[in-house]
């Protein structure tokens, strides 16, 4: 267990030395995770609302598809996306393979089902009287939806947290479509995987600690945004 103690020592040293490469990697991870979370939640939460509140043909099938997608292996998503983005693939012309945008797309695909399924559950958890009361008091569809969202805000905050957790910890798709290129598409997770494989436990551990700190900061920020605990 010596390497653990050694790793922590090196991690601390790295963090304090403001190593440009380490911070560059952390910043890229943060950027990718935030952009992917915003896109995934921006599409997924309204989708969850629709799945939860509107009766339409095929709703059950849609819910099942979304719930199944929750269990989608990240490497499979990476693989499929690689096929699409590779130069011979249908989207090869975009030229996104081995860019940070490709990682974002992969992460969005992975976080979208989480955002949709969990927000559908969150909205279904809100007492139906809330929406009815909003409508009967003269609210339109959008205001009624906003009122429901306010009632479900803890659950919806959990949706964002879960989506962010998924994308910040994601390594499979990022590795495949990002390529783990130093200074360009190397994220915290892919770097940890690489340095562990190279036997550089200290550096890997240091990056792992940064990853945890990043997650902690985002969660604390979300907690503060939710405001007071009471109804």
């Amino acid at each position, binding site marked *: 267990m010596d390497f653990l103690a050694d790793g922590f020592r090196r991690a601390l040293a790295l963090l304090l030395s403001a190593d440009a490469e380490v911070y560059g990697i952390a910043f890229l991870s943060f950027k990718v995770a935030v952009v992917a979370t915003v896109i995934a939640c921006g599409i997924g939460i309204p989708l969850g609302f629709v799945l939860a509140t509107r009766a339409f043909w095929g709703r059950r099938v849609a819910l099942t598809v979304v719930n199944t997608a929750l269990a989608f292996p990240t490497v499979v998503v990476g693989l499929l996306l690689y096929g699409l983005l590779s130069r011979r693939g249908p989207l090869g012309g975009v030229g996104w393979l081995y860019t940070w945008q490709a990682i974002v797309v992969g992460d969005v695909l992975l976080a979208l089902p989480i955002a949709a399924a969990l927000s559908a559950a969150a909205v279904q958890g809100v*007492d139906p*009287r*809330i929406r*009815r*009361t*909003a*409508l*009967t*008091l*003269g*609210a*339109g569809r959008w*205001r009624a939806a906003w*009122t429901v969202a*306010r*009632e479900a805000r803890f659950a919806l905050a959990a949706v964002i947290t879960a989506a962010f957790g998924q994308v910040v910890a994601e390594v499979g798709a990022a590795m495949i479509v990002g390529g783990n290129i130093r200074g360009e598409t190397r994220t915290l997770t892919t770097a940890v995987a690489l340095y562990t494989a190279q036997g550089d436990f200290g550096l890997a551990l240091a990056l792992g600690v940064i990853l945890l700190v990043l997650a902690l900061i985002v969660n604390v920020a979300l907690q503060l945004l939710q405001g007071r605990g*009471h*109804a």
Partner: protein
Amino acid sequence: MLELRGVRHVYEGRVVLDLAQFAVPRGSLIAIVGHNGSGKSTLLRLLALLERPTAGEVLLDGRVVWAGSASKGFLAGRPKGLPIGRPKGLPIGRARRRVTLVEQRPMLFRGTVRDNLGYGLRARGIRRTEMSRFMETVAERLGVTPLLERRRHELSDGEVQRVAVARALVVRPDVLLLDEPVSSADRAAAQALYRVLEAERRERGLTICLASHQLEDAYRWADDIRALAEGRLSPVTPENLFRVELPAAATAKPAGTKHVKVGPIEIAVMTDKIGPAILAVPPTDIFVSTVPARSSARNVFPGRVTRVARPRPGEVHVAADVGGGVELIAVVTEEAARELALVPGLPVVYAFKASAVRVF
């Protein structure tokens, strides 16, 4: 004002409501009575335009707002598709703004009572200054002014109910629908609420339709009572109602028994109440005979059969004029009706015990 036509509502494969016609006239106070599960809440949600009936139409001021979802395929409910020659349909959003429902066990939104009261006004884009004036009047009337800064978890069930009624009245709806509005209120609070509703009705012609299982309130405040049983209008409950003045003292009569004038006849009742009241004689408690019999019944009225109706198999409703146009309805079995050969014009004797008469 509000009307349902040929409405059938199916929920999870079960018919929960089946009404050929149900109208709430402008300015009236209609009470719907019935047991839990009789369809009262569903009926109110349909009237509130919150649920679309499976079949049939909902009309506001004679204009179709909703046509049943099952009646016209996938274009159902689009007023555009209505036959020519009928008034144009009313858009659902505009119609909803004129009808407001207070649910049974209402829910307040997150935020203060003040936020809740302002919700409907904000939804209508009403300015803040106008808003507080409206709100304060209504809050004062319903006695929720001291609660304005509280949040929903700081209120009792009765207070939540009052706030919910206030929240609905603030938007000055044309029709107010109330589902068991006083279920969590004590007597005094209930009477106070009814007085507020009465005032709104008098001052600006508010139309009210409320569901209640407290018959007493229904009889006292409503100008029409409709009984629901298993999703259908049932004719039994609201019959034999008389508005009376109960005399002050029961002189020289057995304690508790009073003789109350109803038109030319006097009905013996057991009550200690005085003043204005409503008497209800349950149609199933009336004995029908062709000759007077000596019995314990304190109320014995000879009369003539005016109508015989059979609303359901095996159940015969017999109306008789028992003097001076006072009509009593008795419910008898098919067998009894046959044995007594009950037909209009037949002389009969109606008898019921003083203790059978309900006083409200």
